[in-house]
């Protein structure tokens, strides 16, 4: 121990970066999709559940030889062990922030709506949902006879109670309930009223919500609220102070499939089936969420210590897991993408021809293949290929074409100067480029990009930086180009590309995109929305606000003895836990 601990800290960084590197285990990417869960798209909230579409499982590699199953797993008759990164212990749907806390909460709480594998929603706790013509009034009819795991019955008033907690002044969770436009929300938040006038409890099973403004996200925002029992969480609550609610974070009570029986921080969460679950008691009696890390997860699956885990996708890992033979391997597109941002406040990047040239002139397919092999796609619109709003109609692919890039730059007035570097009006084409440290793609991006752009006659100075340092540069507008990855909101509505949008501090502005985005957000009909967003993606594709790099995949491997998971990029494993069976 002669090495000081604080140097160990630095060394550790290399480890996290290095080990999590291949994971694309980028926190940011992992958190974001889950964090934005409440904005998932609604298609039709009243149709009954349909079987999962075939294409969802196109990434499924079935186990080849179940008999190879290790004894340890085979002998575990009534318990399913799921390996995952350790949650923070925030077992409360109001305050959860990491994807792993989400997983726990999904198993413990329910909401009126439930996500389906294709990203649309069906009724869950709601028996029926009435929506007014103008989309401003929602009446939720709660299924009769639902109880919480402490035995008390669920009431429609619990919905109002949960909303009150969300709208409390001291609420510091991730949800943004003020943006739901509920009548009277602001008054409650500011403390000028002790009730939310827009939420009326009609009777024990009916609650009515009125809005001031409709957005395409409203149905899911309202229906996706996880309902918490007032009888339990309301004991010490006073408007303006959520301390008493937070104090119960480690002892949750919900109506869900499972209830926590023991929690050892950083080690495991042991859960038992809720025999009175309103959709019928779960088949597997015990579920344990066990902490694993990138270095242990594969070994633990192999030894049978876990039944399921999410392992970094790479050719090596897929091959290794396939060879084990007893695992069903689900390879699903990740809800996120990698991109290279231009600074639109910089004059040289304001010319679309320059942006197109920089895209044509970058060998994206080699960069992506170098790291992920076949398990990531080069993308050309900022949307997941499994989303309903995805389109490839009239989308330019920007395949690597250095000649075309050179022509475009010439046209834009950037011509090769005496030094071999392109110049325009006496200014040299020089790019200061920053790449986020915790992304494995950097390893192939920097060498290939340097080579490519040098050939184009552009001087590039590259550096690797801490993620937050890059975000800070972005906020300050002090950058030329940077590479990062982030989450993808399943609904195409976001603020990344609209003028002065919350997430658009790179200064991009396109009147057509703004108009289409605003139109899409107000439209209630899905088919019409599809058309609107198709047009918008085509515009983005032409205008190249950023160089879109890749969408990678996630790999969930499940021991073949556990059958019945319904997995998709939108429907994560906890949602179908109650259907899972263990084969003996």
């Amino acid at each position, binding site marked *: *121990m*002669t*090495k000081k*601990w604080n140097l*160990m*800290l630095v*060394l*550790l960084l290399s*480890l*996290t970066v*290095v*080990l999590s590197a291949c994971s694309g285990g980028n926190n*940011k990417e992992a*958190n*974001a999709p889950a*964090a*934005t869960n409440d904005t998932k798209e609604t298609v039709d909230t009243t149709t009954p559940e349909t079987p999962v579409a075939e294409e969802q499982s196109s990434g499924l590699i079935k186990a080849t030889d179940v008999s190879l199953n290790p004894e340890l797993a085979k002998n575990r008759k009534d318990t399913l*062990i799921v390996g995952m990164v*350790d949650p*923070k*212990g925030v077992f409360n749907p109001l305050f959860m*922030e990491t994807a792993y806390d989400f997983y726990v909460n999904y198993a413990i709480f329910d909401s009126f709506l439930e996500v389906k594998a294709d990203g649309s929603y069906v009724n869950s706790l709601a028996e029926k949902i009435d929506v007014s013509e103008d989309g401003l009034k929602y009446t939720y009819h709660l299924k009769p006879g639902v109880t919480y795991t402490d035995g008390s019955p669920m009431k429609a008033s619990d919905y109002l109670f949960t909303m009150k907690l969300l709208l409390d002044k*001291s609420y*510091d969770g991730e949800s*943004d309930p*003020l943006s739901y436009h509920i009548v009277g929300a602001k008054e409650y938040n500011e403390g000028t009223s002790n009730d939310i006038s827009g939420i009326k409890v009609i009777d024990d099973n009916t609650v009515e919500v009125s809005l001031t403004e409709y957005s395409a996200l409203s149905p899911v925002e309202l229906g996706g609220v996880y309902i918490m029992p007032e009888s339990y969480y309301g004991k010490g609550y006073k408007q303006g102070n959520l301390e008493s609610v*937070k104090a119960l*974070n480690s002892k949750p009570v919900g109506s869900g499939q499972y209830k926590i029986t023991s929690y*050892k921080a*950083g*080690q*495991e969460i*042991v859960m038992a089936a809720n025999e009175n679950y309103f959709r019928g008691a779960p088949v597997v009696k*015990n579920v*344990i969420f*066990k*902490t*694993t*890390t990138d*270095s*242990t997860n594969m*070994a*633990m699956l*192999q*030894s049978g*210590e*876990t039944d399921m885990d999410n392992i970094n996708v790479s050719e090596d890992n897929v091959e290794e897991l396939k060879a084990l033979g007893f695992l069903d391997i689900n390879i699903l597109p990740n809800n996120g993408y990698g991109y290279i941002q231009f600074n639109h406040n910089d004059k040289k990047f304001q010319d679309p021809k320059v942006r197109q040239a920089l895209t044509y002139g970058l060998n994206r397919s080699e960069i992506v293949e170098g790291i992920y092999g076949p398990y990531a796609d080069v993308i050309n619109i900022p949307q997941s290929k499994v989303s309903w709003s995805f389109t490839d109609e009239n989308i330019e692919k920007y395949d690597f074409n250095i000649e075309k890039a050179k022509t475009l730059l010439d046209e834009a007035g950037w011509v090769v100067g005496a030094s071999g570097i392109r110049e325009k009006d006496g200014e040299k084409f020089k790019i200061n480029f920053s790449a986020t440290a915790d992304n494995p793609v950097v390893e192939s991006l920097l060498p290939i990009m340097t080579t490519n752009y040098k050939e184009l006659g552009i001087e590039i100075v590259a550096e690797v930086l801490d*993620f*937050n*340092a890059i*975000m*800070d*540069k972005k*906020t300050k507008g002090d950058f030329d180009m940077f590479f990062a990855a*982030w*989450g*993808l*909101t399943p609904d195409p509505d976001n603020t990344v590309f609209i003028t002065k949008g*919350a*997430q658009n501090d790179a200064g991009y502005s396109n009147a057509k995109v703004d108009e289409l985005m605003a139109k899409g957000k107000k439209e209630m009909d899905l088919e019409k929305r599809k058309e609107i967003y198709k047009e918008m993606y085509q515009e983005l594709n032409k205008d190249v606000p950023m160089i879109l790099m890749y969408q990678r995949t996630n790999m969930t491997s499940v021991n073949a003895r556990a059958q019945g998971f319904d997995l998709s990029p939108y429907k994560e494993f906890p949602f179908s836990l109650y259907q899972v069976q263990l084969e003996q």
Partner: protein
Amino acid sequence: MKQYIIRRLLQMIPTLIGISIIIFAISAMVPGDYITARANPNMSIEKQEQLRAIYGLDKPDYQRYFIWAGNMIKGNFGDSMQHKQPVTTVINTYVWNSFVIGIFALFFSWFIAMITGIFSAKFQYSFFDKVVTLLVFICMSLPSFFIGLLLIKFLALDLKLFPVGGMSTSGLNATGWTYFTDVLKHSFLPIMVLTMLSTGGLTRYFRTSMLEVIRQDYIRTARAKGLKERTVIFKHAFRNAMIPAITLLGFELPGLFGGAMILEQIFAWPGIGHIYLNSINMRDYPFMLGFTIFLAVLTLLGNLLADVLYGIADPRIRLK
């Protein structure tokens, strides 16, 4: 001596104030805050401002320092932003897991280093000495995650002697002796790696120190008196050779509680190290600051302890 300790303890106060100011300044200068670190692509500007107001991040830095320092004096470390729990609770939840590994590794590494150090010195340039030297440098030339992976591969996967990771068998509802042996089994690999890593350097220090002492006149005198070689080495030489090691012992105190971060990650050990790292990456200031101060206090105490022990072990030293 008593006076010296009191004076040193009093000196800790300005030192700690200095440390707290520097650490706080660092946290204020680090780019980004908890809200940017979350990188939620859907968060509106209004929501960001609301959150900053709730966390008090909207105030000027100097005000934030006084609020924070004032609370620290009252023993209130604040709530961890990530864990939504008091910082002290979070520390208490994880720190003991790290301590368990730390204390065992400390014991074993010092024990092994002493023995090998003595023999390496006694038989300088012998085969044994050369092998030990080589081993030490192999351990130091590979990153520790590499050594960890290596041992998982051989001892856990191939030979199946130990579990791959974690601190106890999942779902094991055992208490008492069964639980104890279960944890013992799980902690073997992390302790082993940690011991290997810390032994290397220590061995070199002990060997050098021993070599120095063996050449001293009083050892020659002892031998000349006809004392047994064993007595000479272990009683006369060793005791004096250990004096410089006391300084090293002082460094170990914060290490015991600081967590072995790389190894916790590799063996999925629920220690405080990776919680701390996370708090830095996520800009969870209350935890980051609170835990840093906690370690700072331990560092100061460790160094004080070393100085005091030094004075006791070597009466020639005048501590003033």
